[in-house]
């Protein structure tokens, strides 16, 4: 732990340095004081945001939608990926359809989804789902395909049934690949939920950000940006921790 802090120290010092530089530049009017980030002012606004019910409301809304869409995408992606990776006919049956849907840039689907599902939560969950589904699916298929055949043969020589083989051997063995896909999906999900909130401007962190921008509350907008970055960081770190717990064995073989 101490070593980790020591290795982070130069980087944290660098962050402190450029925040300080921004502060000095804004104070002395070297940059536009209204539009540029003004660290002490942002900190003050952040203090206001942190104490306000708006933060909990926005955070709850964004995280809730993200969790719903991401959770559904993981469940669907892993199950379908196991089926497609393990069972060739299923793969051949579904592959053309999925290859057709995969290259669609997901943000471009927001307008049609708004037309079909409206501006509320279902639309936002749907866009997160669509964005997060494919990386999980692709990585699960790839993970299943690259499972060491010796492990599958072990299950066969011990006469384990297909279901037990899939869930007790193939699923854990492909977990490193699956989690790598989920990590990409989580990032995409956060991007898409933010974008959806920005476009609809009703609830969540994205909406707060756009509200602040449109109302020219510039430093508030920066404060919300900080909140969003913190959420991104918290999600990434939690995912790291989860990965360390679930696949502690994968780098050790």
């Amino acid at each position, binding site marked *: 732990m101490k070593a980790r802090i020591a290795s982070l120290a130069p980087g944290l010092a660098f962050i402190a340095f450029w925040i300080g530089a921004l502060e000095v530049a804004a104070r002395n009017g070297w940059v536009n004081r209204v539009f540029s980030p003004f660290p002490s002012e942002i900190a003050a606004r952040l203090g206001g945001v942190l104490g306000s019910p708006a933060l909990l409301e926005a955070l709850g809304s964004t995280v809730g939608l993200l969790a719903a869409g991401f959770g559904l995408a993981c469940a669907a992606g892993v199950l379908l990926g196991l089926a497609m990776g393990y069972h060739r006919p299923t793969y051949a049956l579904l592959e053309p359809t999925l290859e057709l849907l995969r290259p669609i840039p997901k943000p471009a689907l927001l307008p049609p989804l708004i037309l079909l599902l409206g501006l509320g939560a279902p639309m936002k969950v749907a866009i997160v789902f669509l964005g997060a589904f494919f990386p999980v699916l692709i990585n699960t298929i790839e993970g299943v395909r690259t499972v*060491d055949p*010796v*492990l599958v*043969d*072990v299950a*066969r*020589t*011990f*006469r384990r049934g297909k279901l037990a083989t899939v869930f*007790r*051997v193939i699923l*854990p*063995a492909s*977990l490193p690949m699956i989690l790598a896909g989920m990590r990409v999906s989580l990032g995409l999900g956060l991007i898409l939920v933010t974008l959806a909130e920005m476009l609809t401007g009703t609830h969540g962190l994205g909406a707060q950000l756009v509200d602040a921008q449109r109302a020219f509350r510039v430093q508030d907008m920066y404060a919300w940006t900080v909140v969003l970055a913190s959420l991104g960081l918290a999600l990434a770190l939690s995912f790291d921790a989860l990965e360390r717990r679930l*696949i502690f*064995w*994968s780098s*050790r*073989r």
Partner: protein
Amino acid sequence: MAELLEIERVAKTFGAVEPVAALRSVDLAVAKGEFVSIVGPSGCGKSTLLQIIAGLIPASAGEVRLSGRVVREPPEGVVYLFQQYSRSLFPWLTVAENVRFGLRHSAQDRCRELLQMVGLADFSARYPWELSGGMQQRVSIARALAAEPSVLLLDEPFSSVDALTRLELHGLILDLWGKTGLTILLVTHDVEEAVYLSDRIALLTRRPAEVAEVFANALPRPRRPVESREDARFLALRHELLTRLLQPA
């Protein structure tokens, strides 16, 4: 003597476009409780033969029968011990959990007993990748025994451990074989190992392989790691087998 395992004219050809014949026609019968080794030049298809016997891959022709029933998929009572033991253990399971994978019912006591038999009682909570190669192979032996097989198929199980560990594992296998009344079929390229361990030795030809000759082993039991290897009967059979193996094609 009643034959437990019968291998009849088993042939194997790989590839449809440019077929490569691995096994021409192999005949062999193994009685219950016997310890039989299969030796042959490297790349002659020994492992392929063992995998066919295990029901892991199908034969192109001929058949394998276990107690008179034709083997088409991994049969009940037969366990195959992989050469790549470190790859055959589940890295996400502890030693005890790996052994329990072999058990029909998760019986705690049986698992502890098995780990004791292979001398790993103190390592049950460790992970396979924390153990040495020899210990990993002991885990996979315990896991194989957990399934209570009547036939154990060993695919060069001692080939990637150091020489001393190999001798220890030989002792362990003979000990377990004596206690359980197992039937063991061992594939190896190590002639000494085959002579030291088995009752009979089947010598395969170069690929496409068939059985050149089956040798009965007159070396008395119990086998002892040092003395048995100095026995005239050991040396004579080793001489014969090595000479045959080294013969130019």
